């Protein structure tokens, strides 16, 4: 702790996670552990119909059940919150259903009791009568259906990038994003080859192992919320708005999370626990079961029709993308997913003429939101499958066609934004080198056939968003970092501590990172979209530099010469070991919203994420079973702050996407999820992990990132699904265009191909 180094000593080191020891020894406190005096437990009574008018709700038996403290419906909520609708994009979601229900599983009433089992039993005694309405489940049908999920759309205006949303009637389209560059139609009319394919993705869920949980201790003038949330600052803002209070009257505390992946963003249970705590004048806690999570937030199912004009050499001349996002009954952040992912729907290719139509649609399914990739994996699934199908049709090597079209540094992307700091080419070449693409490949014999596939993708970061941080140096020279970024398992606390330690020349292990508490930790937009290391990392670095400058100034004024211990500065200044130095940092990157007419912008994103995947697979041709023999994940995440953490993020993201590619699917029957448990919704287990996983963060430097770093949480999800589909075609000559790619689907495709030939 003496002087400042010339080279990096903390950043770039693979320090173990700060919280790891406490987690594995059971010492970490989660929201589930919280018990407050007099606390009631809430159990939710949910809709059994997908779309219907509420005729009546009978809570009398539940109220009479011994031990029940209260039973509430929306009528009770409205006595304290007259307009109880929330949502980041549209104010469409009521705290409890009002007049209508829009999906099976929608919260209709709540029972409160001190004992969870009493609440549970009483909730089963509630009955509701509905006048059932016809329901719409499919995103394409929702475009033109007479069935309208919401009578009127009500934009919330919370985020500047969604300011353009406006209220509409008689439509299920929550947002439509249009991009037009060049003249696609003219090219399609004259091109040598035109290819059109349609791809589908299924509804899946985040399945955080720590299920959603919130506790509220609400009083007339002061509300405290303990919640497993990725967005404490947003929760404060939205609860303050609902209650008509100031932000300093709402305190949101977030302990460690057991996984989030986008499920725990915005308002989930917070409004319900706050409202019922106000009504009962008691603290209230709601913990969801795994089953209930399937009715809370999911990943958008999509249909993506993609059409390309290509010359005989494989150069893509024009591309049209039509994407329909199945947002379910409430918009959540779907419109933002639709728009941000719309920017890159045409893929990381240099195409002069591009047209993109992207629609966020309401349906009577459980709501969809952000899930590790903010829509990008759904798009890459389509455009990287399409790339291979074009290559095969033109008899061009799949790597060559990508090389021929790849978007290079300095060239404009579909929105018109000039590519900067996106190592797309390098990532592609690294995948190709690792998989030995140029060398002969063992295609297998007999009933086992082998194939390999690659995919390359990029993503624009969510913008514009703000992060702020405080670095406090104590009188003994120890240091505390205060921020509202949430470490939900991605180890951001450790990376941020490394940034502080680097700037202040301290040891990472000695930096304390305080848990988000909106009374203490300053604003952060949310922990989502791989934004933390870049945005918050930048704010943290600025805060540490601010603290450092203040300390140095103090030392200078005291005529202390380097090297000195921080403590000596304080002792000399305050006359004893006393006092604090506060450094503050704030960061908001620049951003230009897309033009309303043609969707163009010269500044679409503060940074680009790049991810490439290579797979080698074996297929049992008798049954259609796939084995992933080798999985290669390569990303550009700038300069890794902590290489080991980056490595685990790559494996984790890729394995998660492997589940969405091969085994996971929410099955719906009349809107009801029929496999809402781990017994029947299968995420990958240990025996599904590929034998060989190779990860690489290519050498890169994000020019305006903290120590050259940028986000990495999602990048390894991008290419997994299409790389596998491409490998399947390589192995057995059939194309799969829907997820998950089950053995039965592959087997049937093979059988169909056999019958044809």
């Amino acid at each position, binding site marked *: 702790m003496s002087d400042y180094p010339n080279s990096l000593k903390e950043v770039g080191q693979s320090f173990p996670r700060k919280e790891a020891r406490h987690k594995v020894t059971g010492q970490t406190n989660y929201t589930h552990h919280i018990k407050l005096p007099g606390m009631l437990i809430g159990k939710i009574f949910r809709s059994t119909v997908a779309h219907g008018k509420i005729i009546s709700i009978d809570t009398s038996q539940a109220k009479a059940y011994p031990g029940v403290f209260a039973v509430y419906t929306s009528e009770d909520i409205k006595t304290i919150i007259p307009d109880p609708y929330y949502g980041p994009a549209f104010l469409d979601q009521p705290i409890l259903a009002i007049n209508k229900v829009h999906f099976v599983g929608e919260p209709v009433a709540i029972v409160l009791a001190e004992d969870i*089992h009493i609440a*549970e*039993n009483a909730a089963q005694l509630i009955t509701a009568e509905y006048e059932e309405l016809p329901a719409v489940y499919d995103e394409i049908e929702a475009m033109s259906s007479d069935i309208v999920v919401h009578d009127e759309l009500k934009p919330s205006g919370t985020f500047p990038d969604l300011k353009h949303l406006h209220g509409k009637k008689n439509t299920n389209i929550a947002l439509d994003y249009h991009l037009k560059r060049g003249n696609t139609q003219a090219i399609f009319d004259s091109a040598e080859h035109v290819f059109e394919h349609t791809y589908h993705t299924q509804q899946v869920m985040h399945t955080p192992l720590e299920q959603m949980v919130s506790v509220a201790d609400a009083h007339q003038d002061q509300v405290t919320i303990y919640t497993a949330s990725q967005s404490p600052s947003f929760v404060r803002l939205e609860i303050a708005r609902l209650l008509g209070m100031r932000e300093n009257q709402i305190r949101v505390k977030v302990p460690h999370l057991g996984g989030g992946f986008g499920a725990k963003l915005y308002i989930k249970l917070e409004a319900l626990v706050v409202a019922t705590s106000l009504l009962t004048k008691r603290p209230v806690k709601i913990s969801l*079961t795994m*089953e209930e999570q399937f009715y809370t937030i999911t990943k958008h199912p999509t249909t993506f029709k993609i059409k390309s004009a290509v010359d005989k050499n494989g150069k893509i001349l024009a591309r049209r993308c039509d994407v329909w996002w199945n947002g379910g009954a409430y918009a959540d952040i779907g419109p933002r997913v639709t728009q941000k992912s719309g920017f890159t729907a045409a893929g990381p290719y240099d195409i002069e003429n591009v047209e993109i139509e992207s629609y966020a649609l309401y349906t009577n399914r459980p709501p969809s939101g952000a899930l590790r990739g903010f829509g990008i994996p759904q798009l890459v699934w389509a455009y990287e499958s399409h790339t291979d199908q074009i290559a095969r049709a033109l008899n061009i090597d799949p790597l060559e066609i990508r090389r021929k079209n790849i978007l290079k540094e300095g060239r404009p992307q579909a929105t018109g934004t000039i590519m900067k700091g996106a190592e797309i080419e390098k990532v592609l070449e690294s995948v190709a080198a690792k998989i030995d693409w140029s060398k002969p490949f063992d295609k297998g014999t007999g009933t086992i056939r082998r194939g390999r596939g690659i995919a390359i993708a990029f993503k624009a970061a969510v913008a514009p968003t703000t992060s702020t941080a405080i670095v406090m140096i104590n009188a003994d020279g120890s240091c505390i970092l205060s921020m509202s970024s949430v470490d939900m398992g991605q180890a951001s606390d450790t990376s941020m501590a490394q940034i502080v330690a680097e700037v202040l020349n301290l040891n990472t292990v000695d930096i304390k990172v305080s848990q988000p508490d909106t009374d203490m930790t300053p604003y952060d937009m949310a922990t989502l979209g791989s934004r933390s290391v870049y945005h918050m990392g930048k704010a943290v670095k600025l805060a540490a530099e601010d603290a450092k400058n203040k300390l140095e100034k103090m030392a200078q004024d005291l005529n202390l010469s380097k090297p000195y211990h921080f403590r000596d500065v304080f002792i000399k200044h305050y006359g004893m070991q006393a006092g604090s130095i506060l450094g503050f940092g704030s960061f908001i990157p620049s951003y230009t919203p897309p033009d309303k007419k043609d969707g163009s912008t010269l500044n679409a994103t503060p940074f680009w994420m790049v991810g490439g995947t290579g797979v080698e697979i074996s297929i049992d041709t*008798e*049954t259609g*079973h796939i084995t992933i023999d080798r999985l290669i994940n390569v990303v550009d995440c700038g300069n890794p702050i902590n290489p080991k953490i980056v490595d685990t993020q790559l494996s984790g993201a890729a394995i998660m996407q492997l*589940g969405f590619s*091969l*085994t996971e699917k929410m*099955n719906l029957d009349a809107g009801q999820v*029929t*496999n809402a*448990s781990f*017994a*029947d919704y*299968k*995420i*990958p*287990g*240990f*025996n*599904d992990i590929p034998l060989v996983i190779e990860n690489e963060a290519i050498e890169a430097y994000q020019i305006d990132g903290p120590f050259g770093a940028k986000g990495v949480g999602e990048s390894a999800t991008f290419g997994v699904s299409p790389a596998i589909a491409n490998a399947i075609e390589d192995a057995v000559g059939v194309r799969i265009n829907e997820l998950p790619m*089950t*053995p*039965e689907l592959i*087997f*049937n495709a093979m059988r169909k191909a056999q019958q044809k030939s």
Partner: protein
Amino acid sequence: MHSFQWVEPKTLTEALDFLSMDDPDIRMVTGGTALMLMMKSGVFTPKKLINLRTVQGNSDILIKDDHLCIGSLACLSEIEHSPLVANELPSLKAVMKKLSNVRVRNVARLGGALSHGDPHMDLPPLLSCLDASVRIQSKNSERLIKVLDLYLGYYETALENNELITEVLIPLKPDYQSTYIKCTTRSADDWPALGVAVNLHLNQNILEDIRIVIGAVCETPTMLTLTQDFLKNKTINDSVLNEAANIALTEINPLSDELGSSEYKSHLVSVYLKRAIKTIINKGANHE
């Protein structure tokens, strides 16, 4: 969850005293791995649970009168790691490795695994195929029935409300070789979409006897008697196996569910039946 009574008998006799012929809501619990899922989903609401974990003994694994006899309270992991089982019935040891996971095997007991009646279990088809019997006891009587006869329908067994399985008896036939292979269609640790158990006696390439029991695709473990009859006294080659597979498909009518369509499961049966027989014949091994 509704409240229920929890009792902890010290002996099986005491446990049997708690059971009632007329009350299906009184059940025994050992590992609880299946019962807990049913209780969580509200499929089963107990009035009284009898904890058999407090019962001492009845978990021995030993050879008696040419039978491998296993007490019904033996943990699946005890069976998995028993040298006697490894030596006498390698196929029974082998099945354990892929039966659910190590945490479940450490608490689940043999009796519970056989009494549950979920068609997607691994032990019922294998033990049926090995011609095993179960000793069933009630307060006043005892009976011995074949494992194959234990299953009457979907989650429906021949056990009366006042009965419990006390012992499993597997005949040891040194001339026979057996295997059980299964197929999952989602994750590797999923419920099987299909389980195939084969137990056969080969004499100079001639199949002198064969037993085939299919699990998971139908409501109960199903013995393929026509296929067995066809294969008996045949020399095994590809065309014989193909014909056998075709006959097998006439004997079953797989259920379509989230694990696969009826057609696909039929196809899996034909593939895995051939594989199971070949596994034994080609490798001469007792397990995969």
